[in-house]
């Protein structure tokens, strides 16, 4: 099917409101999370705002909210709205709205429970929730309900794609719906251990129904889902870079088969890599760590393909706009469009984030950086920029599209994107630097008696970068609020950008690039190979005896 045939689908108001509700709840939580991040940056530089601004009791309560809101709530809620939206748009029919609103209710109830637990300082266990640090039961139940919401999305999107295929035999699933389903399917498989942990162990434990936990078993379950979750955040950004952004810059998707292949490869390869978060865990044999090290390098490959295809797609746009020479096309890209600028800058920092991720994953090299500030220095480039700044970029056209109003200020949006880029470059540099010098992460460094002289300058980088990021976030929210309520109605609805492939592969495209079953099967098989012996040992040694503690 030619993608040019995709016409605007007239979306009913209640459907638009559903997507908008998901997105706004996500961003409202990001706003709170960002502000707490600002306070953390200042704390590292020795300026303690926790006494002056008593929205949280201490650094670690703030850090918990920062992590939970930014990477669990903001991402998941935005992704829910975005993936359901692109599915509906690309298949040109409404989603099952009753299921859609049910999903929204389940996730929002879960969110309110979580909000209650973290704001009352009854769950200051950080977003990793490592037992035997114990949280209030509402924290575990709340987050579990949010995960259930992602399964409901898989149900909605999966059913729509199946039905579309029945109605359009012999045709390939449109790219946006294809990518949405690949993302949700990967996460549907990957989230099972997390659900087992939260519902099967942590919830009853926090209600005193079981006396203790096995620390290592819980960690292993957590990281079985805890690494794939980063691809659950990242793939919606890839979806925009591959299938939407080329259109926004006047170009085409450089290689449709490789784009599809990248998405499909993430289904099996995202999953069997969790032990690279447990390189320094005692009780896990070095052999399994080594296997997961090799598999983690393997999951780097689809991102390597993405780097080429997306850049080449952008180049087709820059050249179509008159760009000449080796790099002349870059300057011809529409840098005055905040959505484009945000996503391009997100990609630049993602390149650095990918490399620092490779360092973290590098088996024994991890000894140097494990649990140091190098790690947040890495993931503020990936989830904090590649994902968050891309989502902001998407919102610059998506919110006007959903409301029928114009974007309040494109110029403010461009400035915001650049400030995010600059702020993050400085802050991430500070964090990585301090981390290389041994500064631990997740630590109120400003109050640590062992604070070293050589951490002072990097900590100031962190604080100054954090201030710039806070200003950027503030500009973003002002722009959004104004776009929701103050901006004039648009004469013409903002179009949904959908990229066409550069080469229409037609029937030459192999059928396995539009099938999910074999990839999901490969995922199960790989997980079985990478985890079975280790899990058998963990379960045979299982001793659920360690009681909980709430030292916060």
């Amino acid at each position, binding site marked *: 099917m030619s993608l040019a045939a995709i016409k605007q689908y007239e979306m009913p108001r209640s459907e638009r409101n559903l997507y908008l509700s998901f997105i706004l709840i996500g961003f409202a939580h990001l706003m709170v999370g960002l502000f707490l991040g600002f306070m953390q940056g200042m704390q590292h530089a020795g300026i303690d705002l926790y006494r002056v601004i008593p929205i949280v009791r201490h650094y670690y309560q703030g850090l918990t909210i920062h992590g939970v809101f930014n990477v669990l709530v903001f991402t998941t809620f935005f992704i829910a709205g975005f993936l359901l939206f692109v599915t509906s748009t690309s298949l040109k029919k409404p989603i099952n709205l009753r299921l859609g609103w049910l999903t929204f209710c389940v996730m929002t109830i879960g969110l309110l429970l979580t909000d209650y637990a973290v704001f009352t300082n009854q769950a200051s266990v950080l977003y990793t929730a490592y037992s035997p640090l114990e949280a209030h039961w509402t924290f575990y139940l709340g987050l579990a309900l949010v995960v259930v919401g992602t399964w409901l999305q898989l149900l909605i999107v999966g059913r729509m794609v199946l039905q579309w295929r029945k109605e359009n035999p012999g045709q390939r699933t449109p790219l946006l719906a294809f990518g949405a389903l690949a993302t949700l399917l990967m996460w549907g498989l990957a989230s099972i251990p997390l659900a087992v942990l939260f519902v099967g162990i942590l919830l009853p434990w926090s209600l005193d129904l079981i006396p203790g936990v096995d*620390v290592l078993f819980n960690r292993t379950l957590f990281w079985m889902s805890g690494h794939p979750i980063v691809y659950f955040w990242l793939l919606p950004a890839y979806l925009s870079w591959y299938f939407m952004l080329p259109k926004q810059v006047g170009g085409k998707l450089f290689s449709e088969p490789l784009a599809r292949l990248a998405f499909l490869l993430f289904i099996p390869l995202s999953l069997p890599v969790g032990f690279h978060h447990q390189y*320094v865990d005692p009780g896990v044999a070095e052999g399994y760590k*080594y296997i997961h090290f090799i598999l983690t390098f393997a999951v780097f*490959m689809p991102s390597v393909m993405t780097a080429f295809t997306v850049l080449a797609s952008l180049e087709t746009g820059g050249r179509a706009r008159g760009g000449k020479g080796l790099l002349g096309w870059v300057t011809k890209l529409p840098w005055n469009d905040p959505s484009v600028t945000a996503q391009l800058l997100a990609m630049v920092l993602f390149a650095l984030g990918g490399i620092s991720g490779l360092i973290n994953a590098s*088996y024994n090299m991890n000894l140097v950086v494990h649990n140091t500030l190098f790690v947040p220095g890495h993931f503020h480039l990936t989830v904090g920029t590649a994902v968050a700044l891309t989502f902001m970029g998407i919102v610059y056209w998506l919110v006007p599209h959903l409301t029928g109003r114009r974007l309040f200020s494109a110029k403010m949006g461009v400035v915001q994107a650049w400030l995010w880029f600059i702020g993050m470059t400085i802050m991430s540099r500070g964090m990585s630097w301090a981390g290389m010098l041994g500064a631990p992460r997740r630590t109120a460094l400003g109050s640590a008696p062992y604070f070293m002289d050589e951490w002072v300058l990097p900590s100031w980088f962190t604080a100054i970068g954090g201030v710039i990021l806070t200003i950027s976030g503030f500009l973003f929210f002002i722009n959004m609020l104004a776009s929701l309520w103050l901006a004039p109605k648009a004469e013409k609805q903002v179009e949904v950008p959908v990229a066409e492939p550069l080469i229409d592969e037609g029937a030459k495209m192999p059928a396995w690039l539009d099938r999910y079953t074999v990839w999901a099967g490969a995922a199960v098989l790989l997980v079985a190979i990478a985890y079975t012996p280790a899990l058998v040992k963990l379960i045979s040694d299982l001793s659920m005896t360690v009681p909980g*503690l709430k*030292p916060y």
Partner: protein
Amino acid sequence: MHIDRYERNWIRFAGGLLVVFAAALTVAAVFLGVRLPGIAEQTIPIAQAGGEYDINKGWIRELAPRRYEVNMRARVWSFEPREIRIPAGSTVTFYIHSDDITHGIKIQNTTVSTMIFPGHVAKVTYTFDKPGEYVFVCHEYCGAGHHFMSGRVIVEE
């Protein structure tokens, strides 16, 4: 299925680079002995090898000249022992366990970094060649006083 020549080369190049990196790290692990913590043989940390365990001082045992074994305990929010004195050139094997929740230890300017769990013993070995003071810190969040949890290894001339 059409794959552009440049893209094919790029994928090969990047894949090759990853293989080189992985090979280098493997050499470091196998031949240079830069090892990760694994499953420690010793599962009962305290006083297993005879000798007195002083709860206040922890337990440091000299096995041979410049060969030491240190039993270490982590709990909110302190390490025991908090201070370890050894002569330069000593090889120290640490057996570390936790009494309560998850902790971690990183000895600055060394490759010693491990998680510490209740119910498991972390075993790490390091040779302290250069004299000086090596601060160690807890590197896993363990509650409101986490940032106070530290100690030092003093390597004497």
